[in-house]
């Protein structure tokens, strides 16, 4: 039920191994954290899972089903959604249009109906817009529905990206630095939302540098350094792991 499993996953780029022999599990109902210094390969992992990069070796399974060879749009249709490290919204589109695009998977209208402009199209679209508004209300951003996505503040753009990912109706949610650039208050607010997602049985993976958030929020941590897994376990355990401390060069893990 929404369990994402990586086994011996590796990815090589022209002689450099960005990820080496990584095995990890993202369970539904829990928030899993993936942390590590810059360049450790965290985003590469997300790109591998979502099919944007090809596996050099290893397997990726969703609920026991092998998805390692699937193209990205199929992976998304199986219920894996993600956000991006540098926010990638469709800047020319409105906030609500950005979210509605995420509902692509839930739109069953036939090609013929769409070509002929049958009433079912308008009804479906209206329904999806409703759902988008509900999401916006959950995130307290309903007034921004018609704004151009490019004009929003950084924090709001991040939220729109998260809403778009939720629109996909995923079982697994991969968040790549979702609170970067936010102050502690905003970060905590989003953290609470992630907890709610987990409570709704989503499998949530959070990549983050904000240690305070990571330590309080995550049920389980994986630590990556230079593409290799160097520690794994609950936050208190990982925080005291010698290798982890060294990897961060004595920086605070608070």
């Amino acid at each position, binding site marked *: 039920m929404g369990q994402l499993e990586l086994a011996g996953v590796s990815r090589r780029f022209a002689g450099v191994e960005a990820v080496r022999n990584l095995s990890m599990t993202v369970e539904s109902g829990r928030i899993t954290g993936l942390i590590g210094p810059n360049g450790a390969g965290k985003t590469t992992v997300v790109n591998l899972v*979502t099919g*944007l990069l090809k596996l050099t070796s290893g397997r990726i399974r969703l609920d026991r089903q092998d998805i390692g060879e699937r*193209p*990205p*749009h199929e992976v*998304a*249709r199986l219920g894996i*959604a*993600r956000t*991006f490290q540098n*926010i*990638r919204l*469709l*800047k*020319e*589109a*409105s906030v609500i*249009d950005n979210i*509605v*695009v*995420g509902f*692509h*998977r839930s*739109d069953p*209208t036939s*090609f013929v*109906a*769409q*070509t*002929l*402009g049958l009433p079912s*199209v*308008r009804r*479906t*679209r209206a329904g999806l817009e409703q759902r988008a508004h509900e999401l916006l209300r959950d995130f307290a951003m309903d*007034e*921004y529905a*018609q*704004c*151009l996505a*490019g*004009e*929003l*503040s*950084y*924090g*709001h*753009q991040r939220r729109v990206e998260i809403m*778009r990912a939720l*629109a*996909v109706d995923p079982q697994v949610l991969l968040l790549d630095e979702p609170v970067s*650039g936010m102050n502690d208050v905003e970060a905590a607010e989003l953290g609470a939302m992630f907890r709610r997602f987990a409570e709704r049985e989503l499998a949530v993976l959070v990549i983050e540098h904000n240690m305070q958030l990571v330590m309080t929020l995550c049920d389980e941590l994986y630590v990556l350094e230079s593409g290799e897994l160097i520690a794994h376990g609950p936050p208190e355990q990982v925080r005291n792991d010698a290798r982890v401390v060294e990897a961060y060069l004595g920086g605070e893990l608070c």
Partner: protein
Amino acid sequence: MTSWLSGYGSVLDLVLLNCGLALSQFVVLRAGVFSVATPALASIGAYTAGIVTLRTDAGAGTGLLAAAAMGTAVAVILSVPLARLRGVFQAIATVAFSQIVLSLALYATDLTGGANGLNGIPRLIGTTQLLLWAAAVVYVLICLSRARIGYAFDAIRQDETVAVTLGISAVGHQTLAFALSGAIAGVTGALMAYHNRSVAPEEFGFGMLVTVLAYVVLGGRRSVLGPLAGATLLTLLPELARPLSDNRLIVHGAVLMLVIIYLPHGIVDTLLIAYRRRATAAARASLPIDEVSDGPA
């Protein structure tokens, strides 16, 4: 009176045909494919209809249907290799494709009449059919714009990586865009054949390629009205003054340069964006003050 009408009638015919070509070019650009295969696909449609009509007793309906089928089929086949390329290289590949079609048309003299083309095609269609065709294409494209497919096209065009992570099949949608483009170009080409009563290979060469691009660049690549506006304006412009008609190259060239540098979204899209800005400015005026963009965006 009738000569005045027929004078304008032929201009209207020309506008409608050019709108068809512009819409065919627009569809692929809208879906983020940099293909300029429209003239080649139109020539395939024109030859198909011409050959069908000249060699059999079939009427215009059969000819148009055959042209649509050929245009769609060739476009879909073309989309397969093109799916593996991106941007500029798609453009180069489609230019290569156009040259191949042109040289094959010149070579297969028995079938296509070679350099002389096909002649003596009966005039089976009139302004009414052209109007119906243009209206039908516009209707279908507007319907698609408002449906899932249209949203998917826009997403793929703006950021293909994002589109794909949302479950949108980029290859599937771009193949669809090609198919639509091929069908529209094929039928429009066939209509040109019936309208001009001939098919000449040089009609569908680099000149048409540039002109059709100019329609879409001038009018806009995003909304369906864009190519219509562009095609109408550029078709009517030479009719307004003799010097404009003699210096067609400069007019098209200047339009392309000036528009892409100073009005990059095209006339219609620029107007739509301005309208939208004003509408959202009103909405934003009522929002909390600190919500204006600050961080890295």
